[in-house]
């Protein structure tokens, strides 16, 4: 008797609920040297922009208690190069490819969505309106419900691909942003992006990061992320990809029980490159041990108990 792990994220059919958090898994080929990418339910690739970006000065990361700060600054080769150089590699896998996009203006986002719509081999778009590490765009859109909705309306018009909106925890009410983007045509939500933070090196008496501030991720942020999923699940009827500090199946199940349909592994990949596969195997084991036949039974179950 088999168990059903397949999920649907706003039209993207995933054979299991485990995917990768954008920016922590490159374009796939890097970890493809360690694990079999075909095990993943989907892959979310590094954030892409219209033009290539150099990223921020170093140091770009700092370790913190059970977490890390990063200020990569959306370094990427630009969408055209991504389509030409990186996408063909992923087409060889049986794996929906979700492309994370970021822009300085509403038009950038819409253009990116249009380009990816025509690229072929892209299963969905994740709109990053929550990057804390760039001066323009990013969080500027994600922290104001109206601007967020404006971005999503334009992306929606530019593509027929499923649109996932990546939400920031650096806001007064994540629910307010979620409700607005749902109304603007989002097909799914992903949360959370990193929490804005910083660290100071007391020896040099200076900020550790070249960019001064950066985004906090890893196990340290998990309770904040689980809370965000819980609140948004209650308010909005869109499928959620939950992420923030997931290292093992137990962590992932917390998100699923809080209301996430799928989960993404981020920082944990750096620590344990097999984390995605281990999360998947652990979920399967949990379901078998507890007589659960369909992963859907677990989604949001904590709200019903």
């Amino acid at each position, binding site marked *: 008797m088999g168990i059903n792990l397949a999920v649907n994220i706003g039209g993207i059919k995933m054979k299991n609920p485990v995917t990768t958090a954008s*920016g*922590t898994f*490159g374009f796939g080929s890097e970890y493809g040297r360690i694990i079999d990418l075909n095990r993943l339910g989907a892959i979310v690739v*590094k954030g892409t922009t219209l033009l290539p970006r150099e990223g921020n000065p*170093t140091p770009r*990361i700092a370790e913190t208690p059970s977490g890390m700060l*990063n200020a990569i600054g959306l370094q990427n080769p630009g969408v055209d190069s991504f389509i030409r150089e990186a996408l063909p590699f992923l087409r060889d896998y049986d794996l929906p490819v979700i492309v994370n996009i970021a822009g300085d203006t509403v038009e950038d986002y819409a253009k990116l969505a249009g380009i990816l719509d025509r690229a072929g081999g892209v299963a969905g778009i994740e709109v990053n309106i929550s990057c804390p590490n760039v001066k323009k765009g990013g969080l500027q859109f994600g922290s104001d419900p109206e601007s967020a909705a404006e971005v999503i309306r334009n992306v929606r018009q530019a593509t027929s691909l499923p649109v996932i909106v990546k939400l920031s925890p650096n806001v007064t009410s994540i629910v307010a942003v979620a409700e607005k983007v749902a109304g603007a045509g989002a097909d799914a939500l992903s949360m959370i992006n990193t929490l804005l933070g910083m660290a100071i090196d007391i020896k040099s008496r200076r900020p550790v990061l070249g960019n001064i501030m950066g985004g906090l991720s890893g196990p340290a942020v998990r309770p904040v992320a689980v809370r965000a999923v819980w609140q948004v699940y209650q308010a909005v009827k869109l499928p959620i990809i939950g992420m923030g500090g997931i290292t093992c199946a137990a962590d992932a199940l917390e998100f699923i029980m809080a209301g996430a349909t799928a989960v993404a592994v981020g920082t944990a990949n750096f*620590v344990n*490159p097999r984390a995605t596969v281990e999360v998947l195997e652990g979920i399967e084991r949990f379901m078998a041990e507890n007589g659960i036949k369909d992963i859907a039974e677990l989604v949001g179950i904590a709200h019903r108990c």
Partner: protein
Amino acid sequence: MIHPEKRIHCKKYRIVQNEEPVPGHRLMCLHAPEIAAGAKPGQFLHVRCADSTDPLLRRPISIHRVRRDEGLLFMFYRVAGRGTSLLTAKREGEEIDVLGPLGNGFELPSPGERVAVVGGGIGAAPLFFLVDEIMAEIHKRGADLTDEQDTARQALDFYLGAATGSLLPSLNSFLVRGVRVHMATDDGSVGYHGTVTGLLQQHLDEQTHIDRIYACGPAPMLRAIDELAIRRGIRGQLSLEERMGCGVGACLSCACKIKNFSGDGFTYKHACSDGPVFNIGEVWYGH
């Protein structure tokens, strides 16, 4: 679906030895036949220091040496902070989670080239593997050589620099036949009094001929070597250090400045996957 030649191993390996040959430094030996078999000089390992999530990230440590026939892999590390301190507590027989081999590694010299290898402090660690490989090549070829001139070429100059002498003698004792060691200390306690680059510069001024330089060490030393080599038209490679997250090219945290196409500016490359070894003349040190 994973290409065997591109495979990166991620596994727990048994510790065969973790001793302290010099105060504050450790020589750790692992039984890791898969990694030892495919490893190249200049490549590194990404080591998990704790089973918990704090400290969270792995620590990059170079491959110091290998013994392929026995499947052994050596690391030589300085106890620098929390992660490396935790490593010192690991005992023989315990296991340690290692990811590798990572990075590109050095390009070996062409037959007959005169080579100088330059290590500053703990930066010397990966150079022993390089020296071992170059000498093995030379000895293999040496079997067919007889005349004087050829024997002169069967040598390699290894320049070792450190703040003070305590680290150097034990490093020196590792070396094999045919390696000429030159030592420099900042305080003059052992060998040349001054920087290792100063010593190399002196030898070059005294007509020592060098075709190729390999260097690893602190950033100011690498910069000095880069300038010196460019000025004298000597080819070679440098191994850089940057803070690392993933170690495999996925997170883009280990950015280092590499000259752009026209040479008037820089572009970021990644120490873990494009490096850690870069060609002399390639690294951007600003104007």
